[in-house]
């Protein structure tokens, strides 16, 4: 069954009684109080215990029955929020310099989690009737109630006392003062409501603007404004000065220049008044002159550039014409050389020396080639002969190796064959009989004898007989035994013994027979390794 969570009906509430009606139900009810709430349980008006959180189950049929028998029990429960909460209050006081100081104090309060039941002490005026709408019975304690109770004790004892020690302008930003106020408030609340389970966690005050601060602020504002004006004045002054510096004045005068130069300011003023001299504002003409100067400068630059380019082109042209001249001269020299060579060749041909030298060289070369060819043929012949000898020797060696290898292999296979054979078979094979024949002889020997010594003796007799009868294949051997040992001679021919080829056929059928086995009961062919017949389940091995 899920528990019903129990919380305060309004977040502004600090503690609240649960209504009796909530407990009343036919079935058992379970309540869960979160761990950040204190739950106070009352029975018949008496506080039973206080818990921080918990699960409670109430009511049910049994409870009801109990009520019928032993009288009903009144169960009450109050829950109180144990989380810190903040309340704000306005404050007003006079500073040392008699300025009114105002502010808002924020108090972080909490119901003491170690003594949650003490909260009951704060719940003054609690009624349980709750029927009169005019004076609704308080079944709860709100956070505002708490503040109302402590506020009157704070104004004079704490705020006035603290602020009266300071000038109004010093208050703002004074953490020392704030700490002092907090400490005082804590002391005060402890005095007031410490045993009621209320603790102060922190206090901060936000100050309003006081008269001194306002005056201070206005003064600062006026100073700032004056500074701005001064600054502007300075700027204007500087502009005027700049204009003055840039102004040219043309003095137009009909009076003597020397006189003018020597004239004092007053005299000049006088002259001006008499229109003897005329001030002309030459600012426009000065600007034009400056522009003309710039233009002239640009023209001169262009002129210099163009000149330089022309010089450069001229130099290039000169260089090309020089080159042409040189090439012409070179061609002439080459022509002369060719002419001289031609003359020399003509002279040589005339003297005939060239032809003779050529013939001698050719003959010598021919002879040398001939000798070289002869030598080469001889060397090749020798090489071929040597190769032939080497190859012959190699083949001979290879033959010998193969022979030895074959012998070794034969021996090895013989050994391997012997490995899986019984002593009787080895005996027969050593006597020169084939493996198949040996197997038949061994089977027969074992069949006829009791002990191994007897087997070996019988085997020896059989081998002798088989050798005498020239038995070569399995069929011949079986035929021999069919006819009896005495008539064995000639069996080889009688059984249609074929030389050579038959032995290989016989051996393959023997191999096949060895891989499978026939069930004596149902004649099904089974694997030689099978323990039981796969067809009838007959046991094949003992």
């Amino acid at each position, binding site marked *: *069954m899920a528990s019903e969570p129990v919380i305060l009906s309004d977040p502004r509430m600090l503690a609240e009684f649960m209504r009796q009606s909530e407990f009343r139900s036919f079935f*058992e009810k379970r309540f869960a109080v979160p*761990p950040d709430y204190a739950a106070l*349980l009352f029975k018949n008006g008496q506080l*039973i*215990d206080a*818990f*921080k*959180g*918990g*699960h*409670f*189950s*109430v*009511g*049910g*049929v*049994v*409870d009801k029955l*109990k009520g019928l028998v032993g009288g009903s029990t009144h*169960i009450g429960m109050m829950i109180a929020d144990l989380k810190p909460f903040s309340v704000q209050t306005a404050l007003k006081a006079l500073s040392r310099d008699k300025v009114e100081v105002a502010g808002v104090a924020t108090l972080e309060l909490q119901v003491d989690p170690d003594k949650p039941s003490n909260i009951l002490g704060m719940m003054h005026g609690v009624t349980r009737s709750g029927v009169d709408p005019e004076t609704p019975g308080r079944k709860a304690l709100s956070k505002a109630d708490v503040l109302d109770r402590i506020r009157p004790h704070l104004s004079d004892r704490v705020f006035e006392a603290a602020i009266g020690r300071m000038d109004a302008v010093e208050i703002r930003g004074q953490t020392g003062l704030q700490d002092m106020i907090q400490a005082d408030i804590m002391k005060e609340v402890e005095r007031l409501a410490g045993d009621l389970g209320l603790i102060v966690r922190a206090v901060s005050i936000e100050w309003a603007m006081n008269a001194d601060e306002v005056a201070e602020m206005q003064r600062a504002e006026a100073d700032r404004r004056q500074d701005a004006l001064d600054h502007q004045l300075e700027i204007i002054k500087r502009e005027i000065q700049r204009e003055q510096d840039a102004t040219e004045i043309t003095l137009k005068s009909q009076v003597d220049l020397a006189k003018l130069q020597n004239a004092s300011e007053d005299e000049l003023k006088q002259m001006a008044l008499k229109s003897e001299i005329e001030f002309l504002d030459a600012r426009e003409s000065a600007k034009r002159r400056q522009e003309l100067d710039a233009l002239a400068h640009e023209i001169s630059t262009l002129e210099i550039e163009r000149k330089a380019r022309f010089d450069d082109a001229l130099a290039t042209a000169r260089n090309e014409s020089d080159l042409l001249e040189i090439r012409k001269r070179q061609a002439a020299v080459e022509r002369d050389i060719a002419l001289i060579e031609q003359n020399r060749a003509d002279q040589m041909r005339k003297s005939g020396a060239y032809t003779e030298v050529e013939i001698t060289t050719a003959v010598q070369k021919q002879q040398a080639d001939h000798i070289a060819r002869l030598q080469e043929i001889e060397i090749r012949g020798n090489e071929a002969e040597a190769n032939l000898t080497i190859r012959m020797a190699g083949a001979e060696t290879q033959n010998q190796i193969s022979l030895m290898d074959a012998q070794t292999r034969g021996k090895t296979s013989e050994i391997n064959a012997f490995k899986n054979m019984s002593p009787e078979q080895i005996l027969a094979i050593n006597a020169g009989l084939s493996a198949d024949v040996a197997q038949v002889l061994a089977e027969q020997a074992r069949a006829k004898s009791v002990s191994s010594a007897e087997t070996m003796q019988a085997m020896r007799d059989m081998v002798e007989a088989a050798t005498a009868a020239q038995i070569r294949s399995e069929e011949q051997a079986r035929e021999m035994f069919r006819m009896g040992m005495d008539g064995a001679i000639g069996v080889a021919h009688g059984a249609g013994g074929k030389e050579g080829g038959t032995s290989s056929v016989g051996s393959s059928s023997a191999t096949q027979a060895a891989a499978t086995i026939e069930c004596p*009961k*149902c*004649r*099904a062919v*089974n*694997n030689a390794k*099978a*323990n*039981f*017949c*796969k*067809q*009838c*389940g007959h*046991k094949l091995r003992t």
Partner: protein
Amino acid sequence: MVHSSPTTSYPGQCCFRASLDRNATFCDECGAPLVRCMATDECGGLLDETGRCPICVAPRMSLDAGSASSVRVGGTLALPLIVSNASPVGRPLFIEEMWIKGDDSELRKVELPFQRLNSGATGEVGLRTGVMDTAGLHRFDIYVVVATRYLWREERYAFAASIAIPVEPEGPSEIIQNYNIQADAIGAGMTIYNPTRIQKEREAGIATHAEPIQLTLRRADTLERTLGHRGYDGRYAVPRFTNFVWQGFDREQAPLDGPIRTATGVLSVGRASNAPEVGLNDVRLLISQDGKIDETTSVHISRRHFQLFIQNDRLKLRVESQNGTRINDEAYRRGAVLTLNDLDVIRPLVRNPEAVSISVRFEIQHDEVDRIVLRRRVGTQGSLS
């Protein structure tokens, strides 16, 4: 048991290896007869010693995640079950019946909303326990009857699983039980719980579980018989390993004595000559005596007259002949499947019942039929007389 002392429990690995040869009827290594599943063409499986093909019949049952596993006195509990078919070869499984049984209560049948479960499929069943009257640990047995089918044949098996459910006593209703406890005593910090309740919850293994709980299914062979799914009314059973003894048949007309060893487990009995080569199964049925065949009467026997097989631990006969077959004195049409009982007599020729008959006799050891003796009798009024 018939098979000759296998060293390991049947079927061993050697048997599976030997069963790869379709013609093999015995394991060539341990000598056990290879009793193949009726659906061997699909599953290639061998029956285990209890006559079940573990490849075809692999039901799984689990308790669904999130189901409550404890209840108070006076309450009932719903058990959401998941039944699944874990056959790895795609053989469907048919959930035929489901039963639930409380501690002392009667078996109660559960209505199933589904029957066929394809391989890998799951079905959900909601079981409701009865009212729990007393506190303590209660045990519920759940029985499920499943069937596997192949052609006209069907094998049924019953499995059992049990669930233990703790039932708590009636909850405390007086507040007094709650507030005389201390939080520190149970180490729950700021929150106060009723320690007695915590203790109970721990004992009850409370709480819903996050994952499905796999229930172990055990074969319920007794239940199979009492519910009438296998065997003969709870009296005895004919397991697949039962030996067949053929008497009165001419040479090479009946197979060797022993269990049915055809791959499908069905023995065809009829005039067809391709049947009983040495060691192979199938029975050649002719009206003959001492090698002399009465051809005129034998013609009336169909080439495949009827089939014998073992199903649900019962010897069954399916009529294959167009002319029908008589069992005792009752004639049955083609396609009828009958259970053969001890001392039944099969009379293949409906119109000439005395011409040839095969009597059935069970030799029972404990509650299992060890041998079934099938004796052929050729009637006296035939032309052979």
